[in-house]
């Protein structure tokens, strides 16, 4: 460190400097990939933990209904990657009918399986178990897909694969977290945010003096209705039958009701929870035209077609919430929106229908924890 030897170190420094430049210009991308792979690995660990936890929770829940630990574990593991093959849409004619058929089949298989694995559960608990299993499936699927791309990226060193997964990671984690937080709600049978539709229907019916005794069961699969006399009109207030967790098939039930009351239905009103945009207030009520139903297609199609064929006006009232709120336990803000929704329904009835008309009011959503 003395100034008497001016050039002792300068060559080392120069070498270091060039080495540094070479390293980053030649291996910069490699270093970045390595960094990204590490980030994916961390996220993957988190996803794996959530998948394992939810599986454990599902096993614990199923265990209470008559089968042993080993049997349940084996059964659930076998069911984790159950798949449904979407119908061909190259030949679109009748694709919705085929899809509907497949979805029915899938639901039958699920029910059969849950009955087998939890023989001592009653039907409403069965439905909650189905829901629990579905959440477990979703988390397992997310984990397996991300793991697939992680391993593939590592094996091939493909920047494209690694980059895509790394960039989608925050969104995937957010989604997984929403489902992970929801599993407690499903296994305990608590009402979830998506249950707003059925809740509005039942509270609407009660407000006009129709209790659970007046409920007409099974107009469609797991769907029933309250015949409500309000403001001089007849309102068929339709929802899936709870308090087990099911969404039923309300779309086809609407079609059945229209067919049963040929030419008499004046308006169809659907009530549902809708995804809010970031920045919007949870529990905000919003109105619009169309069928508010988030099924894969067949049911929405059924409502739209029957409305169009019979020239029935169709409108929707939705309450906004985020994804985590929709699959997690119902938030107070959403519950507090119910009276206002009922008030808006009343407004629709008074403004756009005449006394003596018949109206279908359909509450769409999962009925878990919401009694009739």
């Amino acid at each position, binding site marked *: 460190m003395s100034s008497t030897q001016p050039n002792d170190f300068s060559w080392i*420094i120069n070498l270091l400097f060039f080495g540094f430049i070479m390293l980053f210009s030649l291996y910069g991308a490699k270093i970045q990939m390595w960094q990204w792979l590490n980030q994916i690995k961390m996220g993957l660990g988190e996803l794996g933990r959530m998948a394992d936890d939810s599986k454990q929770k599902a096993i614990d829940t199923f265990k209470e209904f008559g089968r042993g630990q080993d049997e349940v574990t084996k059964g659930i593991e076998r069911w984790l990657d159950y798949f449904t093959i979407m119908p061909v849409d190259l030949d679109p004619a009748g694709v919705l009918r085929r899809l509907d058929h497949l979805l029915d089949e899938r639901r039958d298989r699920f029910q059969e399986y849950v009955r087998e694995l939890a023989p001592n559960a009653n039907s409403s608990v069965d439905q909650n178990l189905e829901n629990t299993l579905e959440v477990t499936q979703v988390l397992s699927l997310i984990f397996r897909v991300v793991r697939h791309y992680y391993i593939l990226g590592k094996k091939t060193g493909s920047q494209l694969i690694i980059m895509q997964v790394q960039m989608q990671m925050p969104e995937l984690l957010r989604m997984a977290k929403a489902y992970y937080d929801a599993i407690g709600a499903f296994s305990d049978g*608590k*009402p979830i945010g998506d249950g707003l539709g059925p*809740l509005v229907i039942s509270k609407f019916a009660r407000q006009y003096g129709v209790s659970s005794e007046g409920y007409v069961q099974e107009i469609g699969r797991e769907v029933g209705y309250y015949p409500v006399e309000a403001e001089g009109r007849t309102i068929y207030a339709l929802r899936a039958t709870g*308090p087990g967790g099911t969404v039923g098939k309300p779309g086809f039930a609407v079609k059945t009701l229209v067919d049963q009351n040929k030419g008499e239905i004046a308006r169809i009103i659907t009530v549902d929870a809708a995804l809010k945009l970031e920045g919007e207030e949870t529990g905000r009520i919003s109105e619009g035209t169309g069928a508010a139903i988030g099924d894969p297609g067949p049911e929405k199609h059924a409502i739209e077609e029957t409305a169009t064929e019979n020239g029935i006006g169709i409108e929707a009232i939705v309450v906004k919430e985020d994804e985590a709120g929709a699959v997690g*336990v119902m*938030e*107070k803000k959403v*519950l507090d929106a119910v009276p206002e929704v009922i008030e808006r329904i009343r407004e629709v009835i008074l403004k756009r229908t005449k006394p003596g008309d018949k109206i279908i009011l359909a509450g769409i959503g999962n009925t878990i924890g919401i*009694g009739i």
Partner: protein
Amino acid sequence: MGLLSKVIGAIISGAGAFILFYGMSDPNMSWVWFFIGLLVISIGFQMLTAGGKQKAPKPPPPTITEVKCDNPTCDFKEIRDFQKGDYVLKPLDAKCPKCGSKMTIQGVYIVKEEDEKDKINV
């Protein structure tokens, strides 16, 4: 851990800046001091910024069951913790302590408190 590591980080960063600044005035060794200074600053900054992102996940808020008296003229309302088997619109066996009417569960919900820090106001 949080505050202490931030203080140490700040001190190390300051020391790095000091080395960087005064090392430059040494004509022969300025390169060496430059690198050492940069290294020390980066270590200091690492300590200063680390840990901020890792928040302990908050436990989910408790689920609340709201029970109301069926008698429209009675305003009795009970708020209690969720019990397994509760569902909305479940008629209860317990009678209203105020007027003796039947009671029904009118709501099962959570109260999500939004973190003001996480909220982005536009």
